Structures are given as structure tokens and as C-alpha cells.
């Protein structure tokens, strides 16, 4: 197992949805045990994580926004992109389900139902991976969310937790990643209404920062972590992580 770099430390920027899932609380102590590496998490928005990486202020990033990640690599900020695991997005809403999305056959139908009912819907509106996914889904439904009136389509421009808080306060529908939703402590009247569509697939990837442009980054630690994340050890931990009996993440790295 990896190179043991005693009492080493590195900084990893992650998105709120990853951190909120609680998986990091399981993984970090194990990484410390196995690699002697202390991973310091910076929990920020996707865009901010990419900026921190581009500036060389962190040693690696873990995000879920494929196109942005590819651009990041193209611009030379990271040598490569490694897919680690995925989870899925779920549609959450008021438990009495006024727009009847629970019966929808697929996510596009569910979203259309919400629009037809003009029932409050909270959008992250912050260019995060989740937001981009939501927008893509609307486009798949041939809708342009920028034209939606703000009396029901509410772009709250905030992180996952804050957006869920808003949805909970308003009894609104919202697209969330499963992990954040399960871990969320302020569910109020909300319930998970729709999930399982293939279109809701959510891939997380790890990108070490380019040590050529940023010689000060802890390249060794970043690579040690990468090797650990794609190892069987990580696979067991990730696949074994459960919340309320539910599996949250599925390991899909190709070692």
C-alpha cells in the first residue's frame, strides 16, 4: 500500500455535497492510518474548488462536474482526471407531492410536472455540478430555466445545504445528491420523491494539481492519495459506507 510519507499533509478541495455526505469522516482517518497522510479538506463551491486548484492553493480537488473538469485538464491545471465513484441525484419535495412527481416514469417527466403545477422549485443557481446537472435535465425536457418566473422557480445561489434549508423552509421541490439529502438534518416536511433514473448519475473525479506549473504542491502526497483512492481498500470503505442502511456511493475507479 502506497508510500508512507510520515506526518505529511496535503490540502484537498471538495464540494459541499461530498463533504455533507459524511464519507470524508470515514475515509480521512483511514488515509491517515494507511499513508500517514493528513488530508485537510476545504469545503467550497465547485467553481471555487476549480479556482483554488488553478491557483495552486490546494494539492488536489475532488469534484463532480465533468465538462468543467475536462476543461481544467485541457488548460493544464491538472495532469489527468481520475474517476473514483458515483452516486446519484434525487428529486426531493413536499411529502404530499402536489405535483405528483412520484408517479413519473423518468426525471424529465417529473420536472415537467413541477413546471406545469408551477409548484415552488429551488435551484442551486450557483454553477455547481448539481446545478449544471439540473440545467441539463431541464434542457432535456426542452425547457429553458432562465425564462422561468421567480414566483415558483427560485434560484437561491447557494451551496447544497443552504439550498436544502431553503427548500425545507418553503416546502419546495429540489434536486439534490443522495448523500447530502440523507445526511441533511432539517428535512422538515420534505421527502425523497423520485430517484433511480439513469440520467441522475453523478460521477465524482479526483484531479491532482499540475506540479509543473505549481512546483510547491505536494505532488507526492497527491499521488499517494490518488493511488489509495483507486485501491481496493478505498473500494471496500466506499461501497461499505451506509447511512440509514442505504448505500451512498458506488466505487467505479479503474485501478
Amino acid at each position: 500500500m502506497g508510500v508512507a510519507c510520515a506526518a505529511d499533509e496535503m490540502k484537498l478541495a471538495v464540494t459541499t455535497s461530498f463533504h455533507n455526505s459524511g464519507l470524508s469522516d470515514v475515509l480521512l482517518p483511514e488515509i491517515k492510518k494507511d499513508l500517514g497522510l493528513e488530508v485537510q479538506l476545504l469545503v467550497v463551491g465547485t467553481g471555487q474548488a476549480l479556482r483554488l486548484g488553478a491557483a495552486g492553493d490546494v494539492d488536489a480537488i475532488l469534484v463532480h462536474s465533468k465538462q468543467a473538469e475536462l476543461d481544467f485538464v485541457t488548460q493544464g491545471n491538472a495532469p489527468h482526471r481520475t474517476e473514483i465513484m458515483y452516486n446519484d441525484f434525487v428529486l426531493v419535495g413536499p411529502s404530499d407531492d402536489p405535483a405528483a412527481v412520484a408517479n413519473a416514469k423518468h426525471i424529465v417527466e417529473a420536472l415537467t410536472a413541477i413546471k406545469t403545477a408551477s409548484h415552488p422549485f429551488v435551484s442551486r443557481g450557483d454553477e455547481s455540478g448539481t446545478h449544471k446537472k439540473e440545467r441539463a435535465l431541464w434542457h432535456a425536457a426542452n425547457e429553458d430555466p432562465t425564462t422561468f418566473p421567480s414566483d415558483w422557480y427560485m434560484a437561491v445561489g447557494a451551496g447544497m445545504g443552504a439550498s436544502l434549508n431553503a427548500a425545507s423552509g418553503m416546502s419546495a421541490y429540489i434536486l439534490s445528491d443522495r448523500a447530502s439529502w440523507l445526511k441533511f438534518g432539517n428535512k422538515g416536511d420534505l421527502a425523497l420523491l423520485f430517484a433511480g433514473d439513469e440520467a441522475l448519475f453523478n460521477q465524482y473525479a479526483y484531479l491532482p494539481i499540475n506540479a509543473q506549473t505549481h512546483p510547491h504542491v505536494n505532488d507526492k502526497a497527491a499521488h499517494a492519495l490518488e493511488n489509495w483512492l483507486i485501491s481496493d481498500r478505498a473500494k471496500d470503505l466506499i461501497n461499505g459506507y451506509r447511512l440509514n442502511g442505504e448505500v451512498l456511493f458506488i466505487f467505479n475507479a479503474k485501478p
Partner: protein
Amino acid sequence: MSLSWVFSNAGSLNVEALTPKTVTMNDILQGLISAFHLIVTLDPDLIEISLRSLYVTTSAVAIAAVIGLPFGCWLAVRRFRFRRLTIAVLNALMGLPPVVVGLIVYLLLSRSGPFGVFGLLFTPTAMIIAQVVILTPLIASIAHQAIRDLWAEYHDLLISLNTTRGQRIRTLLWDGRRALLTAALAGFGRGIGEVGAIMIVGGNIDHVTRVLTTAIALETGKGEFALALGLGFVLILLAIAVNLVIHSLSKTEVSGRW
């Protein structure tokens, strides 16, 4: 929100093409450029959120002043047993963490909360309520400080004239208005730059509750640092303008020492 086009426009200097060392300085420069763009083009979104910022903060300052100024004054005038403790608590409440205030107001206004029926959550009114909670101790504390010295000066006369406590407070508020203005302006400053509480109770909803600070937080999260900075500069300019207008209206610094 159309603000982002400004960033793309201003971004015609290719950030990625620059050497790493200058990247962040370039961000600050671009922040200035985008602030300039936003202002000269009278960007309608900018105007909307700026006006909302002003509306929320001035309303909150007005309400907080109506509560905090007489209270601070009363504290200076009245001797009672737990005065010292009250003052220490008041000073400490200047440091009320906005996030906590936001949370409590959220819980109270939430649909399932005691005031849920009014449907105030995620409205500008909720933001005003949260800001009033934050600003009142601040304004009261600075007012108390200013009035305490004036009261020491007036003490003998006002007691001798057999004034009621209400008259004393009114007299001190009126004669100390110059110092109290600073208290109100401090409150305005604190309010206009505040984000933690209003983010939670307002929700930063586009065209409904988005204000300058929440927009800045949003752009920061997006990594759009230049636009965030641009909005920040607009906010600072706004605060300076308000201060200048108030100062020249009240002629505080002109009329010399009273």
C-alpha cells in the same frame, strides 16, 4: 442573472494566458473593470440588487435606531442593579454571530415555526427582521457610549430641573444627535456588508431576495472572483456615497464643535 456577461466582457484579457504570479492581481484589476462596466452601463440587475440592499439595510437601520438609540440612552441615564451586566451583555451582543441570528429567525419564520403562518421566510421582510436583531445591540451599544459622556455633562442640570426620565432621554438624544448619527452609520455599515444571516432567511433568490452581499457570495462560490470583486467595489462605493450624503445633509463635520 445577466451579471455574468460583464465578467465575460471584461474577461477579454485572457486570464489563462498570463503567468501564474500575475493571475490573482489580474483578478483584482478585472474586478475594478467589471465594477466600472456595471456602473457605467447601469446594469439593470445591478441596480435591482443594489436598491434591494439599500431597502433592506435602511429599513433595518431605521427600526434598529428607533429601538437601540433610546435604549442605549436609557442605559446611560438609569442606575440599576444589573447595569454593568446588562452593558457587558449588550457589548457582547454586538458580536452576535449573524449565522446564528439567521438560524433563529429562520426557525421562527419557518412554515413549521410559530410565525410560519405569515409566510415571511425568504422575503425581504425576513431579511430586515434578521438585520434588526443584529444591528440593534450594535447601535444601542455605541449610542450608550456616546450618551454616557453627554449625560455626565448634563446630569446636574437635568436633575435640578426635575425632568422626567423620558425628558432626559429625549434631551440627550437630541443634543447628542451628532454622535448618534455615527452609531446609526456604524449600523448601516454593518448591515450593508452582512451576508450570513440574510443568506439563511432570505435565501438569495434571484429577483426576490438577492442583494449585493449574497450575490458576491454566490459569485465567489462559482469561482467568478472578478465579478464578485466588482460587486464588492460597487458595494463599497455605495456605502461611501451614503456616508457622504448623510454627512453633508447633517453638516456634522462642517459646523465645528458644538
